[in-house]
């Protein structure tokens, strides 16, 4: 996931050399963006002179994402794994102590408090590409943010979560249409679930449980946990594996990434169902961008932020994350249909800071109460 750059001297030398080459016109003009402004070109030159951008991000982003950014901007990029616990820990500790070794973080909904305390860079003023700031390019007429100030934490990806995965060789898909169908005695002890007690409470198991607590109430959740769940696991892939093998023919809290990986390799007994009564909630996955106030390469961070939210950046990211972008011009990508929000439907956005601070605490209390029984 990382490129070969960690030496400070080598990095600066590389940046300076690249800047010189750019100035001399030795590097062919980049095809993106279509008609770059002088401000953008100056910013790219400054970013190159800084030596490039370092991004803490999802482990699933790979060479294609790196190549797309480099091809579009010419700015070197170091991608470091930041989705797992150690990445998050580093993000928090380095950001709060003002000693970031990275320029941008792409992860889950984790940064409200850092934003509130002024430890993050305001991203909104940094966005200078018209295709990013033009609301017409975004669903609902504007780019979504999860912070109330719509300044620090953009959420460019949004997909429907809380779908039900079944083994259609074992369970008739027609028998699971609404959430109450999961309470059928036929499914008692046959449903697997992502562990809602994963430290930090940020996994899919916790999110789905909070959603069900809000949509269906505590009694429903108690029945589900009391009689229907056979087992929980913190391993996302194991959930899909269990369903594919029929160990547990139904699972909640699975990831599309794992489901599609199994399907791509020839496993054809998996069916994904969006319940018809309450269709699920919107999740931003690991697409939330944050820039620490102490980011060492300010210009490079700004270039990355603009690119990441552009059509080109979102195309590369949506392909890697296999999830739909909120951009209207990023369509027909490599993500499954069941992740697309239905037009006209209203979904709860669990990433919204207002929801997280006003609704979620009460739901957490409900969940804790259910889990304690």
């Amino acid at each position, binding site marked *: *996931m*990382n*490129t*070969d*750059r*960690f030496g400070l001297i080598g990095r600066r030398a590389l940046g300076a050399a690249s800047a010189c080459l750019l100035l001399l016109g030795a590097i062919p003009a980049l095809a993106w963006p279509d008609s770059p402004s002088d401000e953008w070109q100056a910013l790219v030159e400054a970013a190159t002179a800084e030596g490039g951008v*370092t991004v*803490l991000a999802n*482990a*699933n982003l*790979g*060479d294609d994402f*790196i190549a797309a950014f480099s091809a579009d901007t010419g700015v070197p990029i170091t991608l*470091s*794994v930041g*989705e*797992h*616990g*150690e990445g*998050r*820990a*580093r993000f*928090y*500790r*380095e950001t*709060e*102590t003002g*000693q970031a*070794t*990275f320029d941008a973080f792409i992860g*889950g909904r*984790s940064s409200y*408090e*850092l934003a509130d*305390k*002024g*430890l993050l860079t305001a991203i909104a003023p940094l966005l200078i590409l018209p295709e990013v700031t033009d609301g017409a390019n975004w669903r609902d007429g504007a780019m979504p943010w999860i912070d109330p100030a719509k300044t620090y934490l953009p959420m460019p990806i949004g997909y429907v979560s809380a779908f039900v995965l079944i083994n259609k060789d074992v369970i008739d898909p027609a028998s699971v249409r609404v959430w109450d169908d999961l309470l059928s005695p036929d499914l008692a002890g046959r449903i697997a679930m992502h*562990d809602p*007690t*994963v*430290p*930090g409470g*940020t996994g899919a198991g916790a999110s789905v449980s909070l959603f069900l607590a809000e949509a269906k109430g505590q009694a429903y959740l108690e029945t589900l946990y009391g009689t229907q769940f056979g*087992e929980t*696991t*913190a*391993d*996302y*892939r*194991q959930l899909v*594996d*269990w369903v*594919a*093998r029929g160990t547990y023919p139904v699972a909640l809290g699975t990831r599309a990434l*794992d489901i599609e*990986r*199994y399907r791509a*390799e*020839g*496993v054809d007994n998996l069916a994904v169902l969006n319940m018809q009564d309450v269709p699920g909630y919107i999740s931003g996955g690991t697409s939330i961008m944050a820039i620490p106030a102490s980011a060492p390469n300010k210009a490079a961070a700004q270039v990355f932020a603009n690119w990441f939210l552009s059509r080109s950046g979102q195309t590369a990211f949506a392909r890697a994350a296999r999830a739909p972008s909120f951009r209207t011009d990023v369509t027909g990508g490599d993500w499954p249909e069941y992740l697309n929000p239905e037009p006209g439907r209203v979904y709860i956005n669990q990433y919204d800071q207002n929801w997280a601070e006003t609704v979620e605490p009460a739901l957490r209390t409900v969940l804790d109460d259910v889990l304690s029984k």
Partner: protein
Amino acid sequence: MRGILGWRSAFLVLLAVPALGPVGVILAQSFDTSGLGEPFRFGVGAWRAVLGAPETLSTFTTSLLLTVRVPAGLAIGFAIAWAVVRLRVPGHQVFEYLCWFAYFLPTVPMVSGWVLLMDRDFGLLNAAVAGLGLPAPFDIRSPGGIVWVHLSLQTVPLLTILMIPALRLLDRTPEDAALVAGARPARVLGRVVLPLVAPAILLAGLASWIKALEAFEVEQLLGERVASFVVSTRIYGMVSSEPPRMAEAMALSMIFLLLLLGLGLLYSRALRWRGQGAANRGEGSGGARPSYGTLLRRSVSVAVGLYLAITILLPFGMLVMGSFMKLFGFFALDQVWTTSNWSRVLGSASFGASLRATLTLGLATALPGALLFGLIAAGMARLRGPQAAAASVLVWLPWAFPGIILGVAILEVSLTFPGMRMLHGTIAPLILGLLIRDLPIGVHVMRNALAETDSTMADAARISGAGWLRTFLRISLPLQMPALTLVFLILFAGAIRDVGTILLVAPPGFQTLSLQTFNYISNSQFEMATVLGTIVALLALAVSVLAHLLGRRLGSVRSAVGTRA
């Protein structure tokens, strides 16, 4: 006189910094109740939260229960060591080498091998048993499975390596006498051999027990079904929470450290006691090798060979096999096998960078580390009385630092100490962490080697007017080159396979093969992880061949290597 005292005091202070520094940092952070981005605020909230949480007791209990592998490992390890040294069974050299190989194998990818064999749903061993119409007996993602993985890959091989030298040094006369008197082999083993090596066994058990309590990677990867499984994984969970619960993690770490430090001090004292005892017994003397029956030797050889093949070669084979599977563990596909995992890994931009990072870290740690530990050992040899005792304790204290806690402490030091901030974001904190972690074993190997070296040449050099440093560089160092090379290999192998210590402090863009493997497995990408794991295992194989060859030359120096069980 004053100069010498000053030098000795400074030496002790230098030893105290890596030994006590992490403890001080962890203790201070455990009392920090400030919010995000706020300055230090003293409070006991974290301690109250940790001590009041029911999970604290349960995780400590689980951690202790999982150390059941230590007595089991001692029994099996002793049996193998006895077969290799005293019975000298056919294939004994291969068996000894296999233990070295296992010692250097990277644990994280080898877990994949065991998953393929003993997963409850798709494990091949379970499938074989199920084919006989019996219920699947194994579950690798259970406490029993975790114990088995540790036992097979670490505990038994390392305890065997540790006990082989002790058995080699054993006086053979009592054993011969018992055999000549007509005692059966089992009686000789139980009444003669075992009591004689009991101190060494107990010492190995204590060292192994400390390390067993600290284990992290296997529990983190296989214990996911039970969140907050053992103390080390609970600490990791706290650190990686959103936002991180650092103060609670530090309070829990402090409780854990107090327990481990107590055991570490006990171990240090036991080590010194045993050293004195060994000197008084005049080990190594004895007559001809005792003769055991051919049938016994062959039977034991088959048993040991089978055990090592099943516990080391089989999961290694599974690791390689897994790297060629389209979908790890899924045999019900039309096309099960592929080479695309290899082409994807080897063709990715990150592979070359990871390989370079791995070799860079290995060399940057092992080269200065071997010399540094040699110097520390030489310095300790000049200490006497209480200073020698204090130095011994200080050197052994890091033995009690779990890698994940050491990593957290190093991260905090590099973020909060003004002098260390400039090193943050470089590989210096990684090297520091790895050197602190391996300080006990490295210095111990060098001290043993120095103690066994004839001092005539060094004395002659000093009488001729050479200073201490010059004597060390021109006489002692060349004489200790085999031991230094062995320490280098131990440090190198430790650096390339480490995850826990460097997980939190590796700078962006610096990802060793082991870290990348850990990330792949954490992200359920077993196919990619097994490819990298195979490559790291082959690297380990090369290192183990070198170490084994050196180990054979070094004799008793090997005794110190096996203490990382």
